[in-house]
């Protein structure tokens, strides 16, 4: 099965990198959507269904924390797993974001295998 993923990050080069890493990792990707902030991500989600969301935290307009809150508050969108990708590896931040509804967390820097493993874990993809 191939999956549809949304990448939310205000850095175009980071969105490009994450997309490339997902492809390099061998993860079964059918569609990859991009948003430059949480508001764009929510607008996109109203038009397209995705299987997983990869989100940065520090974004303008609607940041990653607020995106997680709004996803959790939406009866339809709350079922889509969101994985945070962040430079912050402190316990405080990770716990806070998981409490807001994040289903996974990937700390930068990461290798492709780490991102793939976190995607597959949150999606319940059987191990090879």
């Amino acid at each position: 099965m191939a999956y549809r993923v949304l990448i939310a990050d205000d850095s175009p080069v980071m969105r490009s990198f994450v997309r490339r890493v997902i492809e390099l990792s061998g993860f079964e990707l059918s569609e990859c959507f991009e948003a430059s902030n949480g508001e764009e991500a929510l607008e996109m989600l109203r038009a397209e269904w995705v299987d997983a969301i990869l989100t940065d935290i520090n974004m303008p307009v609607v940041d990653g924390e607020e995106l997680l809150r709004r996803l959790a508050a939406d009866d339809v969108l709350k079922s889509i797993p969101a994985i945070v990708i962040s430079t912050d590896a402190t316990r405080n931040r990770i716990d806070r974001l998981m409490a807001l509804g994040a289903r996974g967390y990937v700390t930068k820097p990461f290798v492709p295998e780490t991102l793939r493993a976190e995607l597959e874990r949150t999606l319940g993809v059987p191990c090879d």
Partner: protein
Amino acid sequence: MTESPITTALAESVHEVLEKMFFVDLMDPGAAEERTGDIAAEVIFDGDPPGTFRLDLERAAAKSAAADFLGEDPEELTTEQLNEVVCELANMVCGSVLSRIESSATFRLAKPRITPGECPPQAPATASFQALVGGGMLRAEIRMERTVCPGIDESAS
């Protein structure tokens, strides 16, 4: 001379970020003198303590890193792409360093910005690190606004 814990954290962070995200190996610059880069990015951070992080790269280093990050031909990269990648590199290294030395605290990074021209003299860096990347020099330095207690939590990384 024993390297300070912050210098160690800085060196480890640069190595880890470049190897994992940029797929490049660093080389020891040896006894090369400190050089001002062609592209520099600065990150201001709040934390305990707050401070600033700066990353300077010579153009050759920036092009090499950006090409590897984006999977593009280094000669095809635009200035905008180089700047964005240097900013992202600064963001990641800064975050990695702070996670190592402030593992139980909360910190917040401002958006990285390209600093125009040569940086005016500032207070001495708390820690600095220099390496060769793709034939060009990379220099990272961090300035904390007050002394960080030694005894970094090794389990944070």
